[in-house]
Every structure is written in structure tokens, then in C-alpha cells.
């Protein structure tokens, strides 16, 4: 048990190896999901499984879509300036 606890604690003492590439942007998706779940858990007047899931998915997709559109606009602006 003590060894297991030591192993678990040691995983938090060294950072993971995350490469700096476009795929690493995918780390924003779990964070977006966390924000959507926490926000809807706070704001829904009554929480039922179906309604909660629907609202969370809707907010998650809205946030992701807005970020994708923002990225596309910024990419287009950068392309216009640099070309």
C-alpha cells in the first residue's frame, strides 16, 4: 500500500512529455468539457441525466465551434498580412 502511494505521488513530481505540435492543442478539449459540465451543473435549475447531458453537449459544441471560428479568422488575418 505504501509502495503504491509512493508510485502515485511520484507521478506528480515530474512533468509529462508534451510535444509542441498542432496535436497538443487537443488538450483544450477536456478543459472545455470540464467548463461545460461545471457551468451547467451550476446553472440548471433541476438536474436530470438526459437534460443535463443535452445541455452539456450543446455548450461543449458551442465553445469548440466558437474557438474553431476564432482560429480560422486569426489564421486568415495572419495569411492576409504575411502574403
Amino acid at each position, binding site marked *: 500500500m505504501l509502495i503504491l502511494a509512493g508510485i502515485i505521488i511520484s507521478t506528480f513530481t515530474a512533468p*509529462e512529455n*508534451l510535444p509542441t505540435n498542432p496535436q*497538443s492543442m487537443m488538450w483544450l478539449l477536456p478543459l472545455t468539457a*470540464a*467548463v461545460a459540465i461545471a457551468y451547467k451543473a*451550476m446553472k440548471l435549475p433541476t438536474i436530470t441525466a438526459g437534460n443535463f447531458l443535452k445541455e452539456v453537449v450543446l455548450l461543449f459544441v458551442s465553445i469548440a465551434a466558437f474557438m474553431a471560428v476564432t482560429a480560422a479568422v486569426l489564421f486568415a488575418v495572419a495569411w492576409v498580412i504575411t502574403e
Partner: protein
Amino acid sequence: MRPMPRRHPERIYNQMDFRNKNIFFLAFVGLASWIVPGAGYFLLKEKSRAIIIFVVIVSTFITGLYIGSIGVVDPVGAKICYLGQIMTSPLVAGIGYISAGGEYPVYGRPSEVGQIYTAVAGLLNLLCIINSIYLAYAGRVAGEGD
């Protein structure tokens, strides 16, 4: 004239004797929410809300620590991030105390991602603290746009 239907039905805590505007109770709810994420909702008998909030905030914070190590909680080198992180729980100060000596250096993308995850977890908990105090005060969930 027919009354307008409510957008969000009000949740009245008739059966709860503690639904009063006692400042100490509101402070207690806020403090409990800060110490343990979701505890404020638990005190208000909103158990499903409390469990969801606890699981989401704690798992987001732990994911940040796993990615960037405890070095992402840096009260000396990253003070602004630390302000967000400490909102998760006062226990974060203990992690800050351990990592403040610079024994757990972290740079680059793991540092960025870890700091963002842990700070966002703290800011989400700040939102929960405010929302649970509002719930204790008003007796209903603040709807979107309130």
C-alpha cells in the same frame, strides 16, 4: 391577465430552516465551498450538484498536476496563476509551499497546459463559491443571464 410563465422555475427551500439571510451561514457556505469544492451545495442539500462539481473541479486540478507536476503551483514565479490555483482549495497552499523552493522545475508546453488546467479549476471553483452563496441567499439557482 394570465401570469407570464417563468423561464426557470424557482426552487424554494421551504423545508429548510437554515434558509435565512444570516451572514454567518452565507460565509460558512462560501468557506465550505472553498475548502472542499462542491461542499457548499452539499450543505444546501443539492447533492447531485455537489458531486458533479467536486468530481469535475478535482479531476481538472489533478490532471493539471499530472501533466505539469506539482511545479506548476509556483507562488514565487507564477503569482497570477497561483491566485487562480489557490481558489481550488486552501490545501493548494501546501503544494505551493513544497514547490516554492524550485525543486520541481517545469518548462514549456507541460508548464503551460498544467498551469492553465489548475488555474481554470480554481476559477471554476470561485464561480461555484459565488453561486452557492447566491443559492443560500436567494433560495434558487441563478439562471443564465441573472
